[in-house]
């Protein structure tokens, strides 16, 4: 049996350490790449989920708006027409000299109820979907809203807008209209404000809507806020915008939308 030779440190052990070091370095590099890939994949998946959720929300809101539009039109065209015809017949009956006084009073009462129903029907139809929005656009509709609110005397509402007669896609107009209505409703119901202001400005490819009032203010965190603010945020997201509430006196909200006009 041969005499075993001493293993030389430099010729055997050092290269071996070098090999182990090389393996460790390459594995570490691959692991770094893997972790980066994983993070990117997670972000991409999250983005996809967000896009799907936004599309779902948009579809759901569009379906809701179409249904509102249909109901508003049916109310106005069918029920409204029927009630108007009934009112006309009753007015004709009232002019008839042959009917008794008691019957005339009864007919007047029925006509009054029908007129009241017509007014309610028009209000409901308008609230469901203002015909003006479809015909004349957002700016004119908001002017009407401002006038109606001011007529009540409870709140002084002002509007500043640079849209003019510009028309936007239907989803955007309805979305902004609903957001403004929800904000005005919040001010009237919870804000205890004397004044409120709507500013609607078009920038290059953006539309900025700022709403302020001098009321008691609101929670700045949408996550813990009520259903109204959540609904505003959902609507803003659905039309590709962002919704922010600022802290301070009164209520200060900002909706920024990216638009391609």
């Amino acid at each position, binding site marked *: 049996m041969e005499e*075993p030779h001493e293993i030389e440190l430099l010729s055997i052990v050092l290269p071996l350490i070098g090999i182990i070091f090389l393996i460790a370095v390459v594995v570490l590099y*691959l692991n770094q*790449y893997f972790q980066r890939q994983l993070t990117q994949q997670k972000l991409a998946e999250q983005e996809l989920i967000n896009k799907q959720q936004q599309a779902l929300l948009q579809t759901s809101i569009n379906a809701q708006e179409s249904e509102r539009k249909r109901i508003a039109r049916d109310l106005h065209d069918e029920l409204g027409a029927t009630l108007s015809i009934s009112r006309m017949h009753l007015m004709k009956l009232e002019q008839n000299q042959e009917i008794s006084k008691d019957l005339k009073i009864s007919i007047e009462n029925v006509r009054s109820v029908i007129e009241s129903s017509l007014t309610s029907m028009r209000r409901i139809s308008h609230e469901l979907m203002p015909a003006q929005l479809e015909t004349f656009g957002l700016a004119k509709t908001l002017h009407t809203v401002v006038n109606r609110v001011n007529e009540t005397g409870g709140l002084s509402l002002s509007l500043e807008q640079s849209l003019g007669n510009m028309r936007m896609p239907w989803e955007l107009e309805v979305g902004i209209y609903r957001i403004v209505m929800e904000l005005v409703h919040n001010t009237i119901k919870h804000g205890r404000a004397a004044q409120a202001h709507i500013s609607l400005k078009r920038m290059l490819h953006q539309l900025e809507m700022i709403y302020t009032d001098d009321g008691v203010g609101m929670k700045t965190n949408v996550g813990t806020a009520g259903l109204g603010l959540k609904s505003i945020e959902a609507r803003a997201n659905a039309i590709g915008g962002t919704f922010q509430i600022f802290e301070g006196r009164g209520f200060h909200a900002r909706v920024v939308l990216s638009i391609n006009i």
Partner: protein
Amino acid sequence: MEYLAVNLIEYASAPVLITAVYAGFIHHRLVTEMRILSYFIFLSAVIELVSKVMWYQGENNLPLLHLYVLIGFILLAMFYRSILQGFIPPKLISAVIAGFTLFTIINSAFIEPLTTFNSLALTVQSVLMIILCVFTFLVLMNDIVREKRQDLLSSLNWINSGLFLYYLSSLMVFYLGDQFIQYYSALTNQYLWSMHSFFAMIMYICLIVGLWKSPTRLNS
């Protein structure tokens, strides 16, 4: 001890042949990744058989080892490429295959001729395989990957463990092989090679379990 060492080397062919028969039996229902691995097993079995025949005929069978190192590595690298897809730089494995092919050709032509033991190529192959195995272990430990590759997880763990154990032991054997042949007795060398055969057996047992646990085309 000497008897055990001789027997281990003598019967080292059995596990590879059994694994190849089993792989052949289930090949038609294997998923793509496992099919690539089965080609490696078939190659190992064919090389093993031919080299045995050449050995009994007294011919030098080392040229087969040169061929086995190259084609075996290409198949294993393709197997790892298929399971690590999306987790490693896209062209890395292809570049490694190209680089290793070039290296083994140059090695066999100019450094370690076809009729000699190609310890350098085997060492490089072992280093590359250890890197792939360790990295695969890291990938398989990740929760997201475990969820995505749930069907292959158990199977891959067995296969990767087998390959890792074998190539780790091979690195030592091939790296120290030259030193041992030069300075140590024939018996010590026999012990070294019996250790290599033992780890080869372990690898094929792991491969059989991995194939047995692998998903089939019907339920994958």
